């Protein structure tokens, strides 16, 4: 017998909530960012085999995040009625994706050009990547409040305050990352005359990209805040 009532209007009424997949997407994007300290430790130790492995891990996480991003977009047709504007959710996924993309760009450059910071800067650059990864981790923590926000209908005072406190920490961590980068650039500036000019150019670029991961994480937080404000 043909299955009855497959098209029950009540069953058809429920679409797939994008909230879970969006949280999952951020956790993949963050996974890519969390590999950065390991990448620079391996490069610092001139363990290029290990560095190549970390690069592979970052690429894998980024491509998984990409797949999930496309799936979220596919499952958000115009006809869905969502608790928050559809455009804001799509923008949020796009920005989350930047975190993974930037991490992948960094890994690609480091492996492609065997980039390694000079010994005196080793500790500082690993600290910088750790700060940047911590910013991303904190943004993920805020994004993981999305299901709790949905539970209170995106408006609750308690829950909104909770998320806003988390976002404040994201901003602080991003600020810490920036300050570290300024100090690292100053150190690099002192050494740059003794280093091959092309390599120096790329070292500056890598510092900028590591900061960009933290910036992207901060933008994720900003987007989340827009969801709350409405």
């Amino acid at each position, binding site marked *: 017998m043909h299955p009855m009532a497959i*098209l029950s209007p009540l*069953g*058809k009424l429920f679409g797939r909530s994008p909230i879970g997949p969006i949280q999952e997407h951020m956790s993949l994007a963050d996974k890519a960012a969390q590999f950065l300290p390991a990448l620079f430790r391996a490069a610092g130790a001139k363990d290029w085999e290990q560095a190549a492995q970390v690069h592979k891990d970052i690429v894998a996480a980024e491509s998984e995040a990409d797949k999930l991003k496309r799936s979220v977009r596919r499952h958000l047709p115009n006809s869905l009625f969502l608790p928050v504007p559809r455009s804001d959710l799509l923008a949020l996924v796009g920005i989350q994706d930047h975190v993974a993309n930037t991490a992948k760009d960094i890994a690609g450059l480091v492996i492609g050009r065997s980039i390694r910071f000079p010994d005196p800067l080793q500790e500082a650059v690993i600290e910088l990547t750790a700060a940047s990864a911590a910013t991303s981790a904190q943004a993920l923590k805020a994004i993981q409040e999305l299901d709790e926000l949905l539970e209170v209908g995106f408006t609750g005072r308690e829950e909104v305050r909770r998320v806003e406190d988390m976002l404040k920490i994201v901003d602080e961590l991003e600020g810490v990352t920036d300050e570290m980068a300024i100090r690292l650039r100053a150190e690099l500036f002192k050494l740059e005359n003794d280093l091959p000019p092309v390599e120096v150019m790329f070292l500056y670029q890598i510092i900028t990209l590591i900061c960009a991961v933290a910036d992207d994480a901060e933008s994720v937080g900003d987007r989340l805040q827009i969801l709350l404000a409405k």
Partner: protein
Amino acid sequence: MEIVIQHGGTFLILACLFGFFMAWGIGANDVANAMGTSVGSKALTLKQALIIAMVFEFLGAYFAGGEVTSTIRNNIIDAEIMSGHPELMVYGMLSALLAAGTWLLIASLNGWPVSTTHSIVGAIVGFAAVGISPDAIHWAQVSSIAASWVVSPVLAGVLSYSLFMSVKVFILDTQDPFHRAKRIIPAYMWMVGFMISMVTLLKGLKHVGLHFDLGLGSAFANAVPISTVAGIIVAALGMVAMRSIEDIPDEMHRFRSVERVFGVLMVFTACSMAFAHGSNDVANAVGPLAAIVSTVESGGQIAATADVPWWILLVGGVGIVAGLITYGWRVILTVGSEITELTPSRAFAATLGASATVVIASGTGLPISTTHTLVGAVLGVGFARGIGALNLGVIGSIFVSWIITLPAGAGLAILFFFIFKGIFGG
């Protein structure tokens, strides 16, 4: 007159068969929507849902279904016009039952969303307008029924929206939602008990011949204290059931324990939903049966006042249970699996909003669609930003199902009407 007396036994048997078929269809299909929210939100297991459905569908039909049954059998058609030809009434109501049952079966096999209520009303209007005369129909009554089909989902939406907002403000958006839930939820349980008791006392009991009087003047004044006590008893039961639920801290899902408390509440709202569904959908399925039985038993008098014989509602109740056992449980699982995004706190708001609306309609004697009312209720929770994603396209498909169901029910009823007329004469 003679035809009814001559074939009385045959008519009764046919009426019971068709009425049972119709009720079977409701149990096999329609109940799934009423119980789907409870199973989908995982507040109830399938077995618990089935037991609740069997008990409360029957209670609803028996204690609160009288008004709707009487609308279907007396108020849509003008019995006066047929007083000389009671057999036409019998043919018509037999056709309406058979048409609505057949149409439900066809639609279910093809997965079309249809409503029992709309099929039966369409079928009655169809046979009366074509088989007898357009003047035989109380068009004012029909238009108020049609209006209630628009009003009921909207009202359910407003109620569910308000209920969910109250849950948000009083429970979820507080420092300690878990303990708030335990303190506030008995109030919602009280509402369930009060509402069911009020409708039963005010509108139900007289149809089964029960009367009560506290000597407080009006029926309403009599019902309020009894219902208040009934509500308190329900709330007390709920508090006992909630005692065993403990707050298990879970940093990743902070509302999990709160939702478990709502799961207990959901058991009560599931009962009220089954009761509401029984009081309306079952009642409108057995309405034609009641009309046939009273015509045959009075030897051709089209009586409009007699009580609904208890065994008629039994046919409806047993039919539903048969439908549930043979097929309905599978449909409940299917519908339940499609609405897993619904957590108990939302399922509660939607279910209570819908069941309150349906029970009010049952009290007023308006046959409405439980499924459409539930859709309206879920949308209400959605507008309160409580649900991850809702498919608004469903509203369109509901309109299409109205437009198709009414003429389909009517067309089949007209066909069967002339077949019966050909077989039995008149």
